[in-house]
C-alpha cells in the first residue's frame, strides 16, 4: 500500500543514514589517557613517515591516531568549539602567537626544559608568547636564491650577476633574462621577487638592515608595515614585475608552472632565478636530477647573506586529553634521533636510486649538525652537492617573524595590500598605510 511503502522506505533511509553518519562520526570522540589524537600531521613524505614511526616507537603502549588532513585554521577552531579537541597539533609557527594569545594553547615550559637548548633561537621565539613557550619547531625552510644556469648561459649573462644586493643590477639582469614571444607573451620570467609568497615582504624589508627592517616589532605588538623601507621594498618588487610584462602577464604565466612535477620551471626554462624555500631542492633533485642549477645566498644591501625561516610547530591545545603523552611525542618527533633516522633512510634510498640527497634543514640545530657531519655525503650530481653547503650556511643568518596575536588577520592585511599594489589599484604607500591600519587594529583587538 502507498503509505506502507513510503513508511518502509523512510525507515530504511533513516536507518542507513544513522549507520553511515555514525560510522562517519567515529573519529570525533573524546580521547582518553593511553591514546593520542594528533591533528595536522597526516600522511607525508618518507622523512615525515620515518619520524612518525620513530616517535611512535618511543611511546610504547599508546594508541596514536594521526588525522589525515593538513592543518587548517577553520578546522582547528571548529574542533575547539565542538569540544572534540585533538591532543596534539602541528600548525604553522606563524599561527602559534595568535592561538597562544587567545588562550587556547597550553604552555610546555617544564616539559621541554631538558631539550630546549637544541633548538634554534629564532624558531623557538616564534613558539613563545608572553614569557612562556608553547611547543617545539620543525623545519626551517630557509630561503636561498636558485639560479637556472642554463637560462643564464643561453642569455649570455654571467651567473655572477644573479645577486640581490645591487638593485640596479638586479633589475637589469632580470630584464636580460626575461624572454617574450612574438605576441608579447612571457616565455621566461627573468627574476621572480616572490613578493606575494609567505616570506616575500618580510625578506625584502630585511634587505635594508638596521632598525626599520622588520614588519612587526620584536614583541609582536606593533605592526611596522608602512615604514619607508617597506614601501620601498614593495615598490621595487612592483618595478621588477612591471619590467617583465606587468602583473597580469606575469601571474598568468606563472600559474602554468608545475613546480612539483618532472616538467618543472627549471627543465622547461621558464624561470631565470628566484628565491625559494629549501624543500624545493629536494623536489628538484627527485624529479629532475640532471637539471642545471646553482644555489646562492639572498644578500642584503651590504652583501651579507640573510634568509627567512618558516615552518610548522607542535603545540598542545587546552582541553587535550593526554598532555603527558602529547609532550613526549612532540619531543620525540623533533628529536636528534628522529631527524637522524629519517635522514639516514632517505640517504640510503637516494643512493640506491642514484639520486642526490640534499640534506635536511630543521629547527633542531644539534640534529642539523649531526646530519651534515655524520650522514651527508656528496655524490651523484654536483650542482645539488654544491647547493648543500649554501643551505647549511644560510641557517646561520636566519630570522623569523615574531609571534603576533593578530595571526591570520595580519597576513591577510599584508597579502591584500600586496595584491592591490600588483593589480594597480593603489600605490605601495597607500596600500601599506591601509595594511598598517588593518593589521594594528587586528593586533589591538586580540592582545
Amino acid at each position: 500500500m502507498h503509505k506502507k511503502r513510503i513508511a518502509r522506505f523512510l525507515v530504511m533511509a533513516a536507518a542507513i543514514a544513522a549507520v553511515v553518519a555514525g560510522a562517519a562520526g567515529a573519529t570525533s570522540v573524546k580521547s582518553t589517557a593511553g591514546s593520542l589524537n594528533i591533528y595536522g600531521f597526516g600522511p607525508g613524505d618518507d622523512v615525515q613517515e620515518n619520524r612518525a614511526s620513530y616517535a611512535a616507537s618511543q611511546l610504547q603502549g599508546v594508541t596514536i591516531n594521526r588525522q589525515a588532513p593538513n592543518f587548517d585554521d577553520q578546522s582547528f577552531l571548529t574542533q575547539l568549539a565542538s569540544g572534540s579537541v585533538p591532543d596534539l597539533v602541528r600548525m604553522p609557527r606563524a599561527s602559534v602567537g595568535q592561538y597562544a594569545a587567545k588562550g587556547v594553547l597550553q604552555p610546555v615550559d617544564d616539559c621541554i626544559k631538558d631539550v630546549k637548548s637544541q633548538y634554534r633561537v629564532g624558531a623557538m621565539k616564534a613558539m613563545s608568547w608572553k614569557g612562556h613557550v608553547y611547543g617545539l619547531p620543525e623545519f626551517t625552510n630557509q630561503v636561498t636564491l636558485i639560479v637556472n644556469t642554463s637560462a643564464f648561459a643561453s642569455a649570455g649573462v654571467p651567473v655572477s650577476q644573479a645577486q640581490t644586493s645591487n638593485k640596479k643590477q638586479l633589475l637589469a639582469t632580470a630584464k636580460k633574462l626575461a624572454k617574450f614571444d612574438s605576441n608579447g607573451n612571457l616565455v621566461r620570467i627573468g627574476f621572480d621577487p616572490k613578493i606575494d609568497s609567505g616570506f616575500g615582504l618580510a625578506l625584502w624589508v630585511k634587505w635594508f638592515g638596521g632598525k626599520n627592517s622588520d614588519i612587526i616589532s620584536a614583541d609582536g605588538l606593533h605592526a611596522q608595515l608602512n615604514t619607508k623601507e617597506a614601501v620601498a621594498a614593495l615598490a621595487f618588487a612592483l618595478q621588477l614585475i612591471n619590467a617583465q610584462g606587468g602583473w597580469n602577464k606575469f601571474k598568468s604565466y606563472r600559474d602554468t608552472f608545475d613546480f612539483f612535477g618532472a616538467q618543472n620551471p627549471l627543465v622547461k626554462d621558464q624561470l631565470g632565478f628566484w628565491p625559494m624555500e629549501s624543500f624545493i631542492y629536494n623536489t628538484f633533485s627527485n624529479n629532475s636530477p640532471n637539471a642545471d642549477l646553482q644555489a646562492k645566498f639572498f644578500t642584503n644591501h651590504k652583501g651579507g647573506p640573510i634568509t627567512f625561516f618558516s615552518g610548522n610547530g607542535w603545540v598542545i591545545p587546552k582541553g587535550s586529553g593526554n598532555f603527558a603523552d602529547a609532550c613526549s611525542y612532540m619531543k620525540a618527533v623533533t628529536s636528534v634521533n628522529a631527524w637522524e633516522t629519517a635522514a639516514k633512510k632517505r640517504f640510503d634510498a637516494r643512493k640506491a636510486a642514484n639520486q642526490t640527497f640534499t640534506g635536511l634543514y630543521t629547527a633542531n640545530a644539534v640534529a642539523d649538525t649531526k646530519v651534515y657531519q655524520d650522514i651527508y655525503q656528496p655524490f651523484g650530481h654536483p650542482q645539488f652537492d654544491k647547493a648543500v653547503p649554501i643551505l647549511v650556511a644560510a641557517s646561520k643568518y636566519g630570522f623569523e617573524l615574531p609571534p603576533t596575536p593578530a595571526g591570520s588577520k595580519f597576513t591577510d592585511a599584508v597579502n591584500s595590500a600586496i595584491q592591490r599594489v600588483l593589480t594597480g589599484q593603489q600605490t605601495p604607500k597607500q596600500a601599506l598605510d591601509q595594511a598598517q591600519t588593518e593589521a594594528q587594529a587586528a593586533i589591538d583587538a586580540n592582545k
Partner: protein
Amino acid sequence: MTDVHAPPPVVTGSGGPLPQVVRRRRRPQPEASWIKKAIFVVLLIGLAILFLYPFIWLLSATFKPRGDTFDNALIPHRWSWNFTGPNIPEPHPQYLFNVAPVGHWMWNSIWISVLGATLTTFSSALVAFAFAYFRFPLRNVLFAILLATLMLPGEVTLIPVYLLWNHIGRFTLDHPWLPHIGTGTQYPLWVPNAFGSAFYIFLQRQFFLGIPRDYFEAARMDGDGYFSMFRRIAIPLAKPALIVTFIFEIQAKWFDLQQPLIYLRDLATFTAPLGMKILFDKFNAAGGGEGDYQVIMAGTLLLVLPMLVLFGVFQKYFIRGIAVQGRKG
C-alpha cells in the same frame, strides 16, 4: 498548476466568444512568418552552441591527459582515462578516484539528497494541506509569517543554528552512550528537512487549493479521519506537486556548498560539491596547488552529470515547477 483562466468574451467578426480553454498549458500564439522563423532558428542554433559550449569543453577536457587540459581542442589530441588508474605518486599524473574518496562523496550526496528531499516533500505536504483545507484560528497570521520567512537572508540563522548543533554535539560528547550528533556529522544537513520548508509549503498549498473541496468532503462523509483523508485523497492528487518538490530539493541539496562547508570535517563524510571544491583547491595551480587539472575536470563532470540525468528524466516537472512560480501573482 492547472491553467483555468477563462478568456473574456470577445466579439469577433464571426460572432460568439472564443472557446473556453481548460487544462491546457498555453494558448496558441501567432507564429512569425516562415522567413522570420528561419532567421530566428539560425540565431537560436548559434546561441545554443554558445550555451552548450562549456559542457562540451568540460566533456572534452575530462578525457585529456595532464598538460593538454587547456589546449582548447574540441576533440582531444590524446585520450586519457582520468577516473581510475594505478596509484603512483607525483610526479606521475593522478587519477580522480585515487586522490580522494570520490565514491564516498557521490554516495553521501545521493543519500543525503534523497533522504532530505523525501522528508521535506512529506512534511511540507502535511503543512501545505492544512493551510489549504482546514479552517482554523490564526491561519492567516501564521501563513503570513511563513511567507515572510521566504524573504529572510539565510545568514542570519546560519550562525545560531550552527551553534545549536555545536551545543548538541558537546552534549553528546559528554554523554558517550549517546551517538555523536552535532557539528562534524551529517545530521545537520538533512534533519531540518523534517520540518517542512516555506517555499515548498507555499508551492504545494497553491496546488491543494486547486483541488475542489468536494473530493475531500466526499471522503469525510464516508467517515474517514482527517489524516486518512489526507493520505488517501490529497497525496495521490498532489503527485505532480510532490514530484516537483522532491526533485527541486534534490537539486538544492546537490548544489549546496555552504552547509557542508561549515558542518563537515572528515574527508569521507563530504558531499560531492564540497569534495569538488577541495579537489579544485588542491590541484589548482593558481591557488598554490599542483596542476593536475585533469582530475579537477573529471570531478567536475561527475558533479554535473547526475543533475543532467535528473533533468533528463524529470524534465517536464522542472519546467512546470519553475513556470508556476511566475504565476503566483
